[in-house]
């Protein structure tokens, strides 16, 4: 693009780049701020992501609980095989299940649905457990009926050490409080949990509702070859279909998925910040070069090459970029400890800032690409500056200037930028969609500006002078209307999108329990308890909406005779359906909130054939068609079932929802338990403790408690989203200001001439307002449309929440943004309303 400057001129060019930068520091302050904020966001996100991934990788063994995990899910498994592992490595057995724990002998006893992990003396094989008091951990192994509850249970039930509590109908002694466990990748990430000795298993009644899970953790002896041992263990279990072997590299897959999703969102926010900053920088630079128009002419007159002058400007940007990259990257290390406060609470991980040369290079490269892409058309405008202007005393305002070469160069750089952001992102398609949308917006706003100019040129202007002036300003040859509309449009779109994401979040958090959601879930109701359970609940309140459905567990062994894992990637949203055994049910009629969207309800003519009604999203993700065959493992027996319809299942309504429903004619003979939901008119009528006393093996989940937890997590996400949005909004406002400043500087001289010609300040202000209103009114309607689409995409796809179009809020937000922008315009113009005549006339 540029001619290579000779080496001997290079020193001079560098010297002038430094000199000009130090002299023009104030004039390009907004470039510095914009660049700093956007690079800081990018640096923070990269550093945070890397720190989290390092923590997960470093502690992969601790998170898994061993060098290898043997998971038998609901059954104890083949102990002969397990014992063979003991010969070559250390083994720790643990069983997890969910049940109710409640206080005892208090006037108002309370209960909590808790995940209990029974552990042996070998636990933990890696990492450590932190607890209080000192002897608590030993007590659960040495004393029967002792339990170590997590901090939240301890505090919310106001427990004391040695206090008696009930686990189902068994009395346990609280040995202490467990603060952290190393293997957080499983159940403990978001729920209440407790640790007990392995003897507890014999005391507790376990059922489907207990969500039972048998695991064996393996630790290899020091010095043993990991690969050889892994191979040996794989050989031991090669014929066992029920076992799942897990390795440290697959640990914490749930947490990794959360991190990846959030990183994806943050990465889109950071590239928004970068691109928007790029536009701001282009505007400010154009304004800056316009101010230096005369100096550039003088340099050309004394013999500087145009290329050398451009390099002076590029060098100034490079110096700024280098300094700001280092500063923002260094400051991002302060951000990690702040983020860690939330992360340690939410995910149970403790992260340390991680320095990475690759990340530093990535931040610099992204900054460099954005700077070059957006400064090419501005700095190229230097070629249009003529030294002969100095003789004529007329300096025309410069415009963005593209040559064919520079367009090609910009496109190549842009592709590099897109590749840099898309490659290795959690969901590259999201990144590509984002870039596509961004440039579509840019194109639409450009076309809008041309349309406005075209239409206004056709308009017959009346005698209103300010109106005439404003139309002339918009439509004049070489007007900056396209730049202003594109900047304003993107800035406003960004503000509205983030604001709409924010309001949707706020609504989701503020929203009470969904209307059709029950108050309680009851799991683990045995066939012989069903009638008594129903009577007991109805006895507490007659006017109740009680739903009781059968429940069995089954695993998908094959789909159309093939391994189900060949149908879907582990990263897919619907992978959970085949990860382990799932609960399924059956129903005579289609559930009201699960409409059939393809196929028909049960074929009663085939009572001996297992028929399956499948969640439509799951079907889509697996690529299942009506008529496909699922081979299910039900209590050790493989049964083929035909998929005969798809249902639209919305799990967010918190009612009873299953991915798979079976035809009752076939399924009712399978041994099963029941799951119930209850919605009370007056929830206070329900006596939780009384119910636990009567049915100790039934687990009771209070929806309100669950929602409180979800709300707490959403609140943390909302805080993060709001903070990041607020920073990006600042960039958006800087961009809008920069667009105004580009106009303002141009208007400075115009206003002087108007002043000399006898225009009143009022008339100049009117013309500015009219000009703004014409542009803003056209921009806001399109920006609203883009913001609605953008926020829908973010809320529904990235955060998987319900998006709602709130027209009132949108109008209000648009109005507020309009007012702020108008305020910016008036204050900027006020500065230019009283230009200092002397320096302007003297061309200073």
């Amino acid at each position, binding site marked *: 693009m540029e*001619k290579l400057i000779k080496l*001997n001129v290079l020193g*001079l060019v560098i*010297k002038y780049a430094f*000199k*000009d930068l130090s*002299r*023009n520091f104030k004039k390009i302050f907004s470039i510095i701020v914009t660049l700093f904020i956007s690079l800081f966001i990018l640096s923070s996100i990269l550093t945070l992501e890397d720190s989290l991934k390092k923590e997960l990788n470093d502690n992969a063994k601790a998170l898994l609980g061993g060098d290898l995990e043997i998971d038998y899910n609901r059954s104890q498994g083949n102990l002969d095989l397990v014992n063979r592992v003991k010969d070559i490595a250390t083994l720790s057995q643990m069983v997890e299940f969910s049940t109710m724990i409640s206080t005892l002998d208090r006037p108002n006893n309370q209960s909590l649905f808790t995940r209990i992990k029974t552990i042996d003396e070998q636990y933990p094989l890696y990492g450590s457990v932190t607890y209080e008091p000192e002897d608590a951990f030993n007590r659960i192994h040495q004393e029967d009926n002792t339990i170590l509850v997590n901090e939240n249970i301890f505090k919310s039930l106001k427990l004391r050490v040695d206090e008696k509590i009930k686990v189902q109908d068994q009395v346990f002694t609280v040995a202490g409080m467990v603060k952290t466990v190393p293997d957080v990748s499983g159940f403990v990430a978001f729920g209440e949990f407790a640790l007990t000795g392995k003897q507890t298993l014999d005391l507790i009644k376990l059922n489907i509702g207990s969500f039972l899970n048998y695991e064996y953790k393996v630790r290899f002896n020091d010095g043993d070859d990991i690969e050889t041992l892994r191979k040996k263990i794989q050989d031991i279990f090669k014929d066992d279909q029920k076992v799942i072997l897990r390795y440290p590299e697959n640990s914490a897959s749930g947490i990794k998925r959360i991190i990846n999703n959030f990183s994806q969102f943050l990465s889109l926010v950071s590239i928004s910040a970068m691109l928007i900053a790029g536009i701001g920088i282009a505007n400010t630079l154009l304004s800056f070069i316009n101010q230096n128009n*005369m*100096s550039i*002419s*003088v*340099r*050309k*007159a*004394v*013999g*500087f*090459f*145009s*290329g050398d002058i451009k390099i002076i400007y590029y060098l100034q940007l490079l110096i700024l970029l280098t300094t700001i990259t280092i500063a923002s990257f260094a400051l991002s290390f302060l951000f990690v400890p702040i983020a860690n406060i939330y992360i340690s609470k939410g995910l149970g991980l403790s992260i340390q800032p991680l320095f990475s040369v690759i990340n530093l290079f990535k931040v610099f490269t992204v900054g460099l690409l954005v700077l070059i892409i957006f400064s090419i058309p501005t700095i190229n405008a230097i070629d249009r500056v*003529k*030294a*002969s202007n*100095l*003789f*004529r*005393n007329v300096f025309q305002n410069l415009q963005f200037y593209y040559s064919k070469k520079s367009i090609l160069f910009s496109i190549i750089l842009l592709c590099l930028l897109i590749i840099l952001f898309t490659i290795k992102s959690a969901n590259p398609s999201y990144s590509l969609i984002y870039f596509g949308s961004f440039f579509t917006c840019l194109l639409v706003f450009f076309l809008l500006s041309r349309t406005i100019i075209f239409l206004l040129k056709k308009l017959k202007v009346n005698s209103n002078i300010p109106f005439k002036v404003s139309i002339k300003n918009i439509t004049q040859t070489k007007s900056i209307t396209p730049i202003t509309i594109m900047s304003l449009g993107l800035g406003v779109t960004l503000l509205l999108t983030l604001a709409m994401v924010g309001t949707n979040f706020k609504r989701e958090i503020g929203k009470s329990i969904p209307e059709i959601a029950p108050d309680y879930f009851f799991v683990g109701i045995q066939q012989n308890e069903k009638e008594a359970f129903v009577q007991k609940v109805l006895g507490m309140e007659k006017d109740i909406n009680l739903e009781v459905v059968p429940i069995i567990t089954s695993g998908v062994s094959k789909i159309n005779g093939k391994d189900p894992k060949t149908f879907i990637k582990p990263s897919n949203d619907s992978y959970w359906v085949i990860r382990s055994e799932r609960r399924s049910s059956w129903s005579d009629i289609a559930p009201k909130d699960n409409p059939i969207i393809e196929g028909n309800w049960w074929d009663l003519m085939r009572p001996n054939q297992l028929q399956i009604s499948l969640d439509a999203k799951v079907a889509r993700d697996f690529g299942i068609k009506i008529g496909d065959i699922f081979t299910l493992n039900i209590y050790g027996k493989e049964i083929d079932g035909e998929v005969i319809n798809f249902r639209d299942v919305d799990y967010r309504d918190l009612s009873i929802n299953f991915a798979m429903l079976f035809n009752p004619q076939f399924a009712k003979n399978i041994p099963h338990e029941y799951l119930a939901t209850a919605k009370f008119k007056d929830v206070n009528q329900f006596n939780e403790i009384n119910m636990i006393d009567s049915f100790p093996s039934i687990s009771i989940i209070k929806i309100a408690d669950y929602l409180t937890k979800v709300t707490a997590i959403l609140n943390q996400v909302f805080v993060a989203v709001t903070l990041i949005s607020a920073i990006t909004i600042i960039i958006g406002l800087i961009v809008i200001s920069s667009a105004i400043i580009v106009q303002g500087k141009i208007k400075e001289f115009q206003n002087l001439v108007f002043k000399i010609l006898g225009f009143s300040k009022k008339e100049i202000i009117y013309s500015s307002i009219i000009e703004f209103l014409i542009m803003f009114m056209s921009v806001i309607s399109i920006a609203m449309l883009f913001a609605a689409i953008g926020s829908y995409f973010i809320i529904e796809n990235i955060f998987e929440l319900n998006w709602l179009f709130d027209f009132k809020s949108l109008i209000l937000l648009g109005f507020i943004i309009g007012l702020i922008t108008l305020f910016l315009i008036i204050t900027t113009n006020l500065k230019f309303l009283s230009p200092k005549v002397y*320096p302007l006339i*003297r*061309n*200073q």
Partner: protein
Amino acid sequence: MLTRQRTIILIIKYLIMSELLKLNQVNLTYQTGIDNIKVLKDIDLKTMKKETISFVGESGSGKTSLIMLIAGLEKVTSGQIFFRNQDITRLSEDEVSKIRRKNIGIIFQSFYLIPNYTAVENVALTLELNKFKDPQNEAKELLERFGLKHRLNNLPSQLSGGEQQRVAIARAIATKPELILADEPTGNLDSENSAMISEILFNYVKEEGSSLILVTHDEKLADKAQRKIEIKDGKID
């Protein structure tokens, strides 16, 4: 016979050697919309080294356009301009810049000093560009010679009109160019400052042996030049 021939050859050679600038059928036309404005028409001109020339004429006659062409800041519509026997109309913008950098100093009516550079820095700019050994000191010495010792580190906005023009002249002559182009150098100055600038300029040309082409409305200034050329409607009268 031989001696006479030799003498004639020597005279021709001398004339060619001492010829600094030659304009050959130079035309300049501006396009404004559908109209073409002929600014300069068939200009032929030769100037010798150390010669001083003034262009006079009414506003819009084409004086300034002519020195813009000589400086290589505008492209001719047709014709040739030879500077030291090199046709600058065939050169690229960068090649012309190189010639201008070393050989031509320009003085403008409105001074045009770089606003955020001090007086010394403005003068040192051309010296540094031409790789002088100690640009800062040379610039200082020159400014001191022009009576600006007390203004060395002042910004242009802190200088009077006369002072600004003296800095501008110092910048133009700092590299001792062979040709100085001055466009209305006293146009923005009062009579006292005008006289001072005029004296500085002509004294310098005399001392250093540079050529000077100036455009002016000031008859007194124009008369100081060895040749006074009037331009009327784009033609040399």
